[in-house]
């Protein structure tokens, strides 16, 4: 197992290197970038050339990639763009945890990410947790009562939940709970239309919760649909097995059989599924965050795409990909750990 994990980690490094080359090439192949952001609408050619030298964009692409990866503090760069290499570079490179500066805010990319990440982790973990708390009982009950009207209702709901565009659902919720329904005592909108908390007010738990409800409900419907369907089919595969029949024969109640003996095995694939979905806690949900003006990673990325803030886009993509690959590995290891029949060489 250790050898297996080690080999997978090595593959991860290779895969990330490959992805970073492609993404870097893609991002830098595009016109625009910092030049249009800084040079104004009708820049003079000299101004453009100077900016290019300042940002190191006059260098060949492989050199630019090298500077991005390992930094340029070991060589001299043209810091004021006058065509003379005058001072040592300041960048440390991605390998030493420096993802460069945001073109838009001129702050380090990692600082930008750190300021947004907690908000996304907060929203996404609450969303996924609530979704699981609803989806597990829903899936179990629907499997036990297969083809009952409850099962029919739950299956239909799950089909619907996967088909609703979340950004549209978010808008509908805002129409209903912000524009139409009013708080009977104060006459204000029942729920806020967006943001993580009321502007300029002191921290209060109820205010935080009020802001959390709509984004969580919007985001969780898709997850509930996805997980409950999976739990239902996973349990349906297990319920006819002989070990459960013998458990019943020994006089265990149906409740014990399902909740203790069947569910513990049915949840194995669910656990790995959750591990595979964990990267969303980092990348967030762009659409939900946009609808509810939630200051998280998704909106940071969206804004960066509008501004063509390439260092920021690249950092989010690379870190996101690293998360996905690692979570894949964790899922595989968990699977082998939870299910003794699975063995990796």
């Amino acid at each position, binding site marked *: 197992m250790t050898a297996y994990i080690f080999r997978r980690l090595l593959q991860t490094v290779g*895969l990330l290197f*490959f*992805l970073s080359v*492609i993404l870097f090439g*893609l*991002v830098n*192949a*595009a*016109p*625009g970038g910092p030049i249009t952001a800084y040079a104004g609408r009708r820049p003079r050619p000299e101004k453009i050339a100077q900016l290019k030298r300042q940002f190191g964009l006059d260098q060949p692409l492989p050199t630019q990639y090298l500077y991005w990866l390992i930094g340029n503090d070991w060589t001299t760069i043209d810091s004021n763009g006058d065509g003379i290499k005058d001072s040592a570079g300041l960048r440390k490179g991605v390998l030493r945890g420096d993802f460069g500066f945001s073109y838009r805010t001129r702050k380090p990319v990692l600082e930008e990410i750190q300021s947004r990440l907690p908000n996304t982790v907060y929203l996404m973990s609450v969303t996924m947790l609530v979704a699981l708390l609803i989806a597990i009982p829903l899936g179990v009950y629907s499997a036990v009562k*297969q*083809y009952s009207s409850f099962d029919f209702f739950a299956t239909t709901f799950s*089909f*619907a939940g*996967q*088909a*609703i*565009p979340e*950004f*549209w*659902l978010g*808008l*509908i919720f*805002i*129409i209903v709970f*912000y*524009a139409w329904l009013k708080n009977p005592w104060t006459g204000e909108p029942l729920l806020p*239309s967006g943001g993580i908390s009321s502007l300029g007010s002191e921290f209060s738990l109820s205010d935080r919760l009020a802001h959390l409800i709509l984004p969580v409900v919007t985001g969780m419907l898709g997850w509930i649909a996805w997980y409950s369907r999976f739990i239902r089919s996973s349990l349906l595969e297990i*319920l*006819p097995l002989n070990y459960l029949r013998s458990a019943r024969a020994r006089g265990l109640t149906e409740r014990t059989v399902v909740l203790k003996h069947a569910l513990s095995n049915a949840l194995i694939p669910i656990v790995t599924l959750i591990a595979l979905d964990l*990267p969303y806690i980092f*990348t967030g949900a*762009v*659409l939900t965050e*946009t609808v509810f003006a939630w200051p998280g990673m998704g909106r940071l*990325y*969206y804004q960066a*795409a*509008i501004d*063509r803030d390439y260092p920021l*886009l690249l950092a*989010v*993509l690379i870190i*996101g*990909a690293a998360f*996905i*690959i690692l979570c*894949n590995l964790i899922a595989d290891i968990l699977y082998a750990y939870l299910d003794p029949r699975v063995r990796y060489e």
Partner: protein
Amino acid sequence: MIPQPSEFSIAIWKRFTRHRGAIIGMVIISLIILLCIFAFLSPFNPEKSSLAEKLLPPSPAHLLGTDALGRDLLTRILYGGRISLTVGGIAVAISLLIGVPIGALAGYYGGKIDSILMRITDAFLSLPSFLVLILLAAILREVELPIFQRNSVLTISLVIGALSWMTFARLVRAAFLTLREMDYVSASRALGASDRRIMLGHILPNGIGVVIVEATLQLGYAIIQEAGLSFLNFGIQQPTPSWGNLIYAAQSHFTKYPWLAIFPGIAIFLTIVSVNYIGDGLRDAFDPYKVMEKVGEWT
């Protein structure tokens, strides 16, 4: 033994029609497609504004109301449906064109070819796909390309298709891995059939079921991706309507004029639900074990 194509399709069709949801889905999606095709019968122009009639609520004259430029919303939704459904269709065609050959080659030849192709598939699978979709759309907005014009239907479809072929590659590879060991394949090889002939003529037709099911589900997925992209204003641009950009346009005053946001979303929802039910029905139809499950002992 392989059944005759006609008998086989009849059997599939019979199983498919037993799925109630799939039939309802078929009816709804056919209606939507017909309405979109005959959108030109509408007395209103989808792109020409008439400011005298702006932001009217639904009424007998304008069944779903009008937008901020006085254009009939129903007409725009139907023309938008043409765009959204076309994007979905082309995107799935593109991902089929990439995914099926990759999966077929990997599964049929195995060895080095397999491991290289599957590594590439893994690389694509480890990307946060919606974020890359936004990046590609943002980049392609800036570049002049000969066929793939900015924000055109073809460009958006290409971007969506290029990021969703991986499931096809995996499914086709798995099918080829098992089917290539079958006796009938060895027999046709012994008779001197070329690799190409064996792959296209003998193996692919027997693995086509999973591909069709997946293509149906991907169609819904592609439509929802286009809608999301256009909602972020990275997709199809105004004045050309698409279901996503209609909702994007509605955003600025949707609490006062809610119909602008509600109706395009219902169109998306109905389409996706129908497509998913059809996919579910097809899966049951192509899966012989599914039929047995319903008479299983455990109830």
